[in-house]
């Protein structure tokens, strides 16, 4: 009712274009300390987001202003809000572009699961984890949401999408007689991916045991480094960020269509694809946040940039009229097996405090919580110190495993290897 009234008001207003996103969320949350429920939460919200656009008289500029339309707003309050947004939008002068027009897209056909069933799956899964006297679950937090989203624009888009998202944070302890350590995991998916999460929790427990016995990281200065898990995902994300239309248009990425992303690539050449659908991803959408149909699209092929992607404004500015915002994506596997990646002397980094890669500068870094230093036949678990480097150079000799795994909205190689990574030790 409120939405229909808002549309009426917008049609009668000074707005040149507008977009409404109405998101209803039914969310259930469960917080556990060890295996006891700390508290349960219910979220029942309806957020209406409105963006209003105004063009200059000569048609060269467009401005936008956005706000949330509060639930229970009266007709008078909505009119006042729309008028205020029109005034604000007029003050903003960006280069003109057109909003997406409606384009039909095939729905996925599957219906969202139930919040209660998905929550029960998570709770049962964690109850069934086989703990040991030295490795167990410290705490975990379960978040399950069903979202029902309606997107309406002045350009004829009026679409409904419903989807599930779920997330679980788990803290895993390992201990010996003198010491206890913890490892942190965050899992994101559509519904509960019991098989993959359970497998990873047991693997994390094994890592915990190694962290207990870890020595101080030696001062390796420069060393090959193998990345896995979230750090491999972060490195793969760098390629997606570099072809973002906003970065390209603003001159913050010099990657050009039809050209390789680096000269003299001696390692594996990246192939990056946008995926319309990825099994149990929390980001499966038929349309993106601006109403553009999401589709499978090769963005980088064998090291050569093929397409840019991004929001409507910047895509339009670089002449990429048929673009969309990537929801799911994949960096294809490389030429080597996991076993071949793990060769010679190298540092395999399993756990970081917070591993980051900066698409603007190419710098990456992270404090090591657990790594294994492979020196010939000797393998030593190590902790402390940091790894760092610059991807602008190091991507040239990057190697990726053929084996891949799914992490949330992305499929990426299980292992990524970089040569010449700076390793700052923690030894005295």
């Amino acid at each position, binding site marked *: 009712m409120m939405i229909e009234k808002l549309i009426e008001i917008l049609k009668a207003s000074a707005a040149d274009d507008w977009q409404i996103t109405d998101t209803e969320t039914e969310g259930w949350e*469960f*917080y*556990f*300390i060890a295996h*006891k*429920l*700390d*508290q*349960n*939460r*219910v979220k*029942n*919200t*309806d957020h209406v987001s409105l963006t209003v656009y105004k063009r200059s008289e000569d048609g060269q500029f467009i*401005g936008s*202003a*956005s*706000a*949330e339309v*509060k*639930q*229970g707003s009266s007709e008078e309050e909505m009119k006042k809000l729309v008028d205020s947004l029109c005034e*604000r*939008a007029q*003050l*903003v*002068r*960006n280069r003109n572009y057109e909003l997406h027009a409606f384009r039909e897209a095939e729905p996925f056909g599957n219906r969202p699961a139930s919040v*209660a069933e998905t929550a*029960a799956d998570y*709770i049962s899964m964690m*109850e069934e984890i086989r703990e040991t006297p030295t490795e167990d679950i*410290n*705490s975990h937090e379960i978040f399950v949401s069903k979202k029902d989203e309606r997107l309406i624009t002045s350009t004829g888009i009026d679409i409904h999408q419903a989807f599930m998202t779920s997330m679980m*944070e788990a*803290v895993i302890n390992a201990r010996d007689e003198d010491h206890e*350590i*913890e490892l942190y995991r*965050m899992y994101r998916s559509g519904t509960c991916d019991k098989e993959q999460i359970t497998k990873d929790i047991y693997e994390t427990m094994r890592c915990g045991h190694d962290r207990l016995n870890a020595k101080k990281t030696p001062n390796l*200065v420069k060393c090959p480094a193998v990345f896995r898990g979230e750090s491999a995902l972060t490195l793969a994300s760098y390629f997606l960020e570099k072809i973002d239309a*906003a970065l390209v248009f*603003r*001159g*913050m990425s010099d990657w050009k269509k039809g050209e390789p992303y680096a000269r003299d690539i001696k390692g594996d050449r990246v192939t990056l694809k946008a995926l319309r659908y990825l099994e149990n991803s929390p980001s499966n959408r038929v349309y993106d946040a601006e109403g553009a149909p999401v589709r499978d699209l090769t963005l980088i092929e064998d090291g050569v940039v093929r397409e840019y992607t991004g929001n409507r*404004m*910047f895509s339009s500015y670089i002449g990429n009229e048929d673009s969309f915002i990537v929801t799911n994506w994949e960096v294809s596997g490389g030429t080597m097996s996991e076993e071949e990646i793990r060769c010679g002397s190298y540092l395999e980094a399993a756990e970081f*405090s*917070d591993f*980051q890669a900066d698409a*603007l*500068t190419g*710098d990456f*870094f992270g*404090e090591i*919580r657990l790594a294994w230093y492979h020196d010939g036949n000797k393998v030593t678990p190590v902790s*402390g110190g940091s790894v*760092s480097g610059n991807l602008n150079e190091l991507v040239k000799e990057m190697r990726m495993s053929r084996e891949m795994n799914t992490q949330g909205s992305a499929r990426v190689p299980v292992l990524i290897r970089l040569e010449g990574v*700076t390793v*700052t030790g*923690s030894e005295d």
Partner: protein
Amino acid sequence: MKAPFSEYLNGISGGLKELVSLLSEEYDYVSILAADSAGLNIRISKHAKNVSDRTMMAERGIVIRTAKNGFYSEYALNDFHPEDVKETYRKVTESFAQQYAVLQSCNAKIYETPVLSDEPLTLFVEKETEQLPETADTKELIAKLSALSEKGMSLSEYMIDCIVTGQSTHVCKMFLSKNRDMRQSYVFSEATVVPVVSKDGNTQNAYEGVSGLCGPELFDQLADHLEHAVHTAEELLSAERIEPGEYEVIASPEVSGLIAHEAFGHGVEMDMFVKNRALGAKYIDQRVGSDLVTMHEGALCAQNVTSYAFDDEGTLAGDVTEIENGILRTGICDALSAVRLGTKPTGNGKRENFEHKVYTRMTNTIFDSGNDTLEDMIASVKYGFLLEGMESGMEDPKHWGIQCIIKAGREIRAGKFTGKLFAPIIMTGYVPDLLGNITMVSKDREVFGTGGCGKGYKEWVKVADGGPYLKTKARLG
């Protein structure tokens, strides 16, 4: 003027009190936090300008907390109708019953917790501000920030963008329970400048900001930082890579704040004590730093972005001395964790917004000043670095490891700057070593509130931190 309390919240307060009464017939404890916080966010760059009402703390909604037989539950909604309280009551009780059925089917056990204190308390606070984000002259503010961005573009031949943002939030929160009626209204603002430079494929950026417990009038102060930010960005184009190792360092106030936040901010959040996730619990009254280290935490410690009158659980704001002359004295605590630990809450129970759970969170986390001058500190360094600019940090309360990503280090040799800049700097180490090696502390100190803080990788809240210049030893990479 005083920041006026929300008319909307006043309008629904009667209905919410009725809801508290209804729910109290069924539950041992009931409280409601209602928020109606207006925001203004202006972002200007060479290529794109935006204006919206979205800031980190802009929100409108309510969250109901109940407890029954030691079992705590919450229900968050943003469509409350005071004329139909029974409908909200029905939704809340039915939803909890559905969740309870699922928990029973999974044989989940409950972490039983005593009932929270509900001592009678009435409070009404409206803090001073010059302007409000919802009524400020947006045209004038956009013009000012646009002029700043344009001036920044003109200051360097290598500039490819100069991103300027101004954000202001008028926070209005109301806490109601059977015995409490607490209402507060205050405005905080922040503004940042990020010059982006590029030369021969090398792209770098710098970052400077201002923040305060005031309205959008604060944006004017950003102009004083523009030239320095652009100069730093240019310097970063020729920065060298540091050779990994342990060095004498002087942390600038911004970096001192990052250390305070990551070291004994997160390290003494007492909800982590409940989970046995923080080493700090075992080190109360033990030495964790040199005699020169004294650190405070609390909404009353400074006038900045998180200087509220009461927290999201209706606990009055506090000022806690966490470390006194190197000895760890106490932590900070939310109300639920306090009742579990048998201690008192410190006014640090915060939510990302009404849709999120309360955790123990930081407010202002600040090292106390000392007696040294920066000049003497620099002169005392044989070989080391002055660390400037904060990028990010990560806590590790269980093991007291620390990761601080710092924008740059200025080389000091024989007590003098060499003119060389090294970037980026990754500072890692063991917190008691880092604090134990502090040998000089400057007289002046600053507080910074332009950043946000997550708990792990989520639950983002506004925080401020800072301190004086600190001289210590650290491992840099």
